[in-house]
């Protein structure tokens, strides 16, 4: 391992990001359900209350609309709130605040206000949490321009993106992958930022472009390894931010590989992959040598049965199958 790099978990990386940003800027405050004394149900806010005190780290009632609304109001007044909504599924209780207020306020005020706020949340697909605690829903926010949507897929990205999100002057919905919290990966010791609104080419390749995001990044990289054994060179692009989306990087990759597979945890209908696919079909059709394939879960609620859930989710094998259909 390179010097100045250690292995820490995705949750630890997020925790470090929060601590560093709170030390750096006293406008950063954290609140949400069980984020204080308990340290967050997934320990992402562990130790914050002890270091920063109850004025900056606040446990809230079970009131998602009030949590999101409080973030908006605090941001309007120049603080940089980082509010936690425990599960993506609970975002629906705060969607008026996020979609109809946070995403619109700068625009509808004619640029008078800015909202430097982050809503942290996580989706638990892959942990047998059942219908009401596993949903992804990220693509829903693509119908709501004005709120940035960021989805880290590795510990390093989790830290760098969260730090950028906290420093960003626009509202950011930061969706973590619950299944990754314990995943360890290399994270630099020194401070670094990863810009919002940019894709990351995680692996370069020639024959096919695989676009992935959040949990599926790891699966796409595994698929690329398997494909390499069979002589197929796959380029893996991690979207990282889905709104605003960095289409340019995807287009450039497709110009090179002429084939595109998109794999994400949305259900297939109108998901993230549907948008990427439509964009490339509309604006870069001439560079395609084969149809685009989307690898998604079927449009069904998420089953509890761990065996059924495994079948429901996409994995590296499903991505490999899709690529093989394109590259014969």
């Amino acid at each position, binding site marked *: 391992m390179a010097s100045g790099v250690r292995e820490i978990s995705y949750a630890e990386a997020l925790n470090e990001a929060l601590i560093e940003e709170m030390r750096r800027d006293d406008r950063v405050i954290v609140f949400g359900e069980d984020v204080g004394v308990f340290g967050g149900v997934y320990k992402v806010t562990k130790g914050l209350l002890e270091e920063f005190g109850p004025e900056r780290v606040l446990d809230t009632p079970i009131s998602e609309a009030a949590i999101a609304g409080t973030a908006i109001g605090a941001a309007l*007044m120049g603080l940089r709130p980082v509010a936690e909504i425990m599960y993506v599924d609970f975002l629906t209780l705060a969607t008026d605040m996020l979609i109809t207020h946070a995403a619109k306020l*700068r625009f509808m*005020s004619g640029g008078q206000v800015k909202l430097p706020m982050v809503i942290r949340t996580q989706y638990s697909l892959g942990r047998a949490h059942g219908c009401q605690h596993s949903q992804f829903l990220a693509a829903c926010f693509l119908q709501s321009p004005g709120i940035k949507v960021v989805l880290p897929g590795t510990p390093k990205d989790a830290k760098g993106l969260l730090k950028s999100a906290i420093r960003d002057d626009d509202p950011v919905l930061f969706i973590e992958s619950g299944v990754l919290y314990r995943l360890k990966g290399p994270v630099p010791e020194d401070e670094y930022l990863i810009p919002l609104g940019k894709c990351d080419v995680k692996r370069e390749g020639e024959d096919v472009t695989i676009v992935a995001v959040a949990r599926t990044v790891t699966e796409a990289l595994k698929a690329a390894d398997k494909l390499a054994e069979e002589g197929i060179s796959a380029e893996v692009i991690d979207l990282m931010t889905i709104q605003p989306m960095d289409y340019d990087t995807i287009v450039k990759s497709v110009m090179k590989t002429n084939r595109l597979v998109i794999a994400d945890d949305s259900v297939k209908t109108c998901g993230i992959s549907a948008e990427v696919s439509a964009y490339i079909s509309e604006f870069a059709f001439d560079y395609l040598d084969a149809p685009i394939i989307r690898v998604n879960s079927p449009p069904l609620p998420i089953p509890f049965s761990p065996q059924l859930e495994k079948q429901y989710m996409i994995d590296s094998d499903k991505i490999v199958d899709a690529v093989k259909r394109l590259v014969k």
Partner: protein
Amino acid sequence: MLEARRFEEMVERLFLVEGKLIGPAHLYLGEEAVAAGVIGALREDDVIVSTYRGHGHAIARGVSMKALMAELFGKITGTCKGLSGSMHSALSVEHNIPMATAIVGSGIPIACGVGLALKYRKEDRIAAVFFGDGAVNTGAFNEGVNLAAVWKLPILFVCENNLYALSVPHKKSFAGESIAARGACYGIKSFLVEDGNDVIAVYYAASKAAEYIRSGNGPAFIECRTYRKKGHGVYDTAWYRPKDEVEFWMKKDPIDRFFKKLKSLGIITEDEFKRWDEEIASILEEAVKEAEEAPIMPFDEMWDYLYVSGGARYGEWR
């Protein structure tokens, strides 16, 4: 109050007689004493969270009628450059109104954030959030008022109870003794102003409440009972309200009563009143003329207001 009255009368004419304005607009006609009394009792640096019935709040805070009118016309000279329209036209950061919501009840949780920021910075400013009687039945109301009470935030909750949520009378949609009593059940100091058309009574209650909040006691709550002179929105004739009820409230017009009082006390003469009224009329005439002549925002400029970091224009990769 008189400016708000004349402004709304002009707006109504522009919609219904002249046909120059379209879209939703919710007039403050008849409720002027609430904005004047409450905002008059606040400091200018106190923060206001307004609503879609917000022209009266903005005018009471000193937002220019010309900028408001231009906003209603959707012009770049409007308070929000023509991007908000009537329902958010009160939003004016320089007047400490950073928010005017068109979703019933939604200003309440947002005011919690304003209050939290003021408390965190140990400022002696307070936040005041306006909402109607319909809002008190939303989940946002419960979540927001409860949070403010638990965290002892410096917020004045102002319920403008005009007795109707659009067409549904308060007594058909509200359970409990009164809205003020509902405030009290969160352990919040609550005031009921039964005659919310009496600007002095509103001012008195709001002053007491503001002083209480500013002394670090946490939030306070005021219910002001008032009445719309007209319908819910500008096109609504309010045919569903009983005649005797309408007559009862029309006799309690806040402006007639206040000026009668001022005249009887010798504070203002009939001539002075007329001169002032004419002055307002001429400002409004100019406001309409200027708004009609003003340009709209160039379409592509809208991208600049999507993100602070600049617009990501769709489909422009080549």
